[in-house]
């Protein structure tokens, strides 16, 4: 009856050491407790253990999210109860961050989960309006608690404010940035060179100030979880 489980034993859950932590590079494990709910991307749950309930249409999100979506499903669900929740986004790398009074802006498609008690809101970024129609939105998150991000490939963190030069990022590769950075859009190519091109590097976001920018090694910003419907 018993199967030889030796080859897969190494993948058993490790003891919980934090509210949110990685299980492997691309799975998130959340230790959920009553009274400490989590907002997670709808459709990101891959497994759970214990007594966990999902509220796919939480009022708080509905209010916030009205700015960035126009239709049916909300991008976030509220998870509550006691248990272990495993989340993933189609194999994207997961990065767990503990905010300690920090504030962070995150590209909406790169959010996996965050503590519901954090202050958060949808941000309109000047210069990003161009992308609004493509479902790109930003969420500003601040307070003290945990946030989990996804990144296609291991991300890289770059400090801004190194010298006077600004840091320019391809919007498709942008994952998150410190909220206090100043931001502006920039076209770095001459108009003449745009002819015959698709959406390449025509448009960048420039960041300046003290802080950091997180980028992923991929320009694939497709929202797979949304695409699933």
């Amino acid at each position, binding site marked *: 009856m018993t199967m030889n489980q030796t080859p897969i034993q190494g993948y058993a859950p490790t003891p919980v050491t934090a509210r949110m932590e990685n299980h492997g590079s691309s799975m998130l494990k959340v230790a959920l407790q009553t*009274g400490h709910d989590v907002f997670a991307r709808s459709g990101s749950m891959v497994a759970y253990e214990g007594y966990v309930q999902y509220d796919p249409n939480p009022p708080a999100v509905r209010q916030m999210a009205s700015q960035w979506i126009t239709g049916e499903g909300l991008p976030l669900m509220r998870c509550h109860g006691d248990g272990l929740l495993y989340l993933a986004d189609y194999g994207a790398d997961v*990065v767990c961050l503990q905010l300690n009074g920090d504030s962070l802006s995150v590209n909406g498609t790169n959010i996996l989960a965050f503590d519901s008690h954090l202050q958060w809101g949808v941000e309109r970024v000047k210069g990003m309006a161009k992308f609004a129609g493509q479902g790109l939105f930003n969420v500003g998150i601040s307070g003290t608690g945990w946030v989990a991000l996804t990144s296609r490939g291991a991300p890289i963190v770059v400090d801004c404010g190194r010298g006077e030069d600004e840091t320019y990022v391809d919007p498709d590769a942008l994952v998150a940035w410190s909220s206090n950075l100043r931001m502006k859009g920039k076209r770095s190519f001459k108009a003449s060179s745009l002819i015959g091109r698709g959406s390449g590097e025509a448009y960048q976001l420039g960041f300046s100030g003290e802080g950091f920018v997180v980028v*992923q090694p991929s320009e694939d910003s497709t929202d797979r979880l949304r695409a699933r419907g």
Partner: protein
Amino acid sequence: MAREFQRGHKAKISDLTAGTDLYVGVQIAGPGLTFDISCFGLDAQERLSDDRYFVFFNQPQSPEGAIQQLGAQAGDTESFRVTLDRIPAQVRKLSFTATVDGAGQMSQIGPGHLRIVAGGEEVARYSFTGTEFSTERAVMLGDFYLKDVWRFAAVGQGFDGGLEALLRNFGGEVLEEEPETPAFQAPPEPATAAPAFAPPAQSGPPPAFAARRPRAPAGRPGTGTRLPGAAGPRARLPGPGTGPPGLPAPPGSTPPPAAPPQMHVAPTLAAPIAPPGYFTDQAPPAGGQVPPPPGPPGVPGRPASYGAQQPGPYGHPDRQQPYGQPPQAPPQAPQPYGQPFPGQPAPSYGQPVAAHGAAGVRAGLEKYREVPTGQRWTPQNPKLIRVDLGVDQQPVLARQGSMVLYQGKVDFGYKGAGFAGRIIGNATGQEMQLMRCTGRGQVFLAENSAHVHPIELQGDALCVSAESVLAFDESLQHEVRRIEGHGIPGGALFTMQFQGHGTVVVKTHGTPVVLPVTPTTFADSNAVVAWSAGAQVIVSSQVRLRRSSYPGHSGEAVNLQFRGAPGNFVVVQPYEV
């Protein structure tokens, strides 16, 4: 395939490998921390009865040489060579430990590992991160112990008191008289001092390892192409399993395998663990029914609740607090989650965690931090590369759309549709367009999470499939070549030939294989990435490797045959475009 160990796992060495000549590598690092990694040879009472079996930087090998310290290797902060069958009978256990030297604690360390390599193959790996520890200053990482046969155990046990506690554990008062002890604790720079104590030595293979570091000057007479990690006579791409067959084994019997692509070369720091009182730091959640329990397990008034709850994981009908019920007795609050897992050691929540005060986004992101070096081309991780245009002041040509970030004053221009700027390929009319990056600053390049490999040419020539070119120095001469053949999509395969001095960045989907060119070397035209220009390409219509046919597919692939003098190589990716 290395077997992954978790804390507490044990296995017979004989189940891992038939060999007894083992390489043990330890990687442990943290920002600003230095570590002393030592091996204690203990007797049956787990005492260090013979201090000659305390192998550390001041005593790099045991008397008969069964345990040797090899020093830092690629991918490992410290390494040992252990010859199990030469270990004297009174030594029953080898304990590998790491101690923080100077200030610091174990929670600050980044991802690390202890791995066992035998016969050139990694057979076991125990990975750990700082989140498993708290204020400890020393940690027992793993043990080899003799119980009928030699076995390995992943321990991961920290010691609050640091070195003292560790020494006491291994023999108490005896050790306190040891001359090594003060030396061990003494100056804050043993890491720099260590090389003097531990000569790169012995019969171990350090030189071969050292050459694996990206861009280490692996002097290769003959041809001039260098790939990072090139250690052998032929250029190789980094990554396990890419060595060409017939690569002579480095001297010494236990070379580690090609280190897995090093994700983060910089010292890393993992996110600190959830501090106790984490939940008390903030306002109660809306709805405010329950004052939050202070920290997951350490509920005041119920300090012993752990043990008591241990047998009652959720799912048991007789548990005391069903999850679904609102918690009674608010101060004692809901059952702290995450603890009562059967068969798992309870994490040490109750201990003070000093790191939490400094926790924050920065700490969590530390391990993804940009790699600082003054080099022109610097891989940031396997999928992202940075070019510093300020070095050499040379423009770079990069595939359009591959820039993810740049800093500084960089101008992007389109390479004119002249000589090689535009390649019209493929039946679909897809184009490869390049952009010219000039100015002063750093440009980060990546594309679609593909692995990137900088290949430095030193007067050599290299052909790269046009689809696999990510970027290259403008100083390289480059020209477009067409390989025609029936069955190739679009009628021809476009390649770019590079020659001169500079770097080409090649991207591959997945870990590539580098094959030496032999009289019978074939590659699928869709999977081939690059080859040394000395190899002659023949479109092979005679040889057809049948792929599994399915409706709509003819079942035949176009193969390229390569011919050339020994020393030429072909790079193939596990992905067919």
